[in-house]
């Protein structure tokens, strides 16, 4: 116990473990799925995709928190992966939103139910 922690402020039964973070990430990911599957507006669908990417980042960071080398030093490969996910998410958002604006210019709508140009 550290010097500054008072005996009253320590709890054992309530500790937050890996499972807590995984469940939170799973819930956020599922909300992202629900948004991406059921929204009409293309921009709202993109918001759902961003939420899903974010939830996956949380699982990476949570697993990295517990991964260690044999000598006890921490491994931060998960953090590096999250940096790449952030990069790809930024690129994806820029291109996808540009496409949404382009579709709007041609069709005057971003309603995915009305974008049926490829329908036979």
């Amino acid at each position, binding site marked *: 116990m550290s010097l500054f922690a008072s005996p009253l402020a320590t709890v054992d039964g309530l500790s*937050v473990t890996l499972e807590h973070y*995984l469940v939170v990430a799973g819930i956020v990911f*599922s*909300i992202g799925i629900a948004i991406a*599957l059921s929204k009409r507006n293309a921009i709202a669908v993109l918001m759902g995709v961003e939420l899903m990417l974010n939830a996956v980042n949380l699982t990476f960071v949570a697993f990295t928190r517990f991964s260690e080398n044999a000598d006890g030093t921490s491994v931060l*490969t998960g953090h590096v992966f999250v940096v790449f996910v952030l990069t790809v998410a930024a690129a994806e958002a820029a291109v996808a939103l540009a496409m949404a*604006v382009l579709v709007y210019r041609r069709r005057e709508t971003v309603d995915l139910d009305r974008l049926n140009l490829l329908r036979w």
Partner: protein
Amino acid sequence: MESLGIIAGFWLLAGVTIGASLAVFAVRNLLHAVVFLILAFVGMAGLFITLSADFLAVAQLLIYAGAISVLLVFAVMLTPLANRDNSNSLYVLPGGAFALAFATIIAFVAIEVDWHQLRGDALGARSFSTTVAEVGSALLGPHVLAFEIASVLLLAALVGAIVLVHEDETGEAA
């Protein structure tokens, strides 16, 4: 052993993140949805901080809460005649049911699996003071090839986004 404060912090941040994500689904105005999405990103950055990922928390704030949300607001503003209500299509029932089933499966697996050597308190103090130096040396050490490829990807996305929305003199989109 953890202090009560950081446990309360975890539950608060988790509640804010999940509640804001639900609000993105539920609110009726698309711009309000963007605002709640920013709140969810900020809550997620707080969860990163509770996991000792300081660099990623700041990067999350900069990239998601800063840049991507501005892009989303721009996209909403650049489509002025489109429908602004955050309405659902006919797929809301199967989509919601699938999401619920998915969340149940993930929660079941996460709780039932014996995480063997990944046990322990998530919120305890780490041995290092900051992750910035370690992430930096990992990026430019073993992962330098992926790092360079990411820079090419960013350039391609930049040029692609500009080309997509570019208009020539006749006003015709490229």
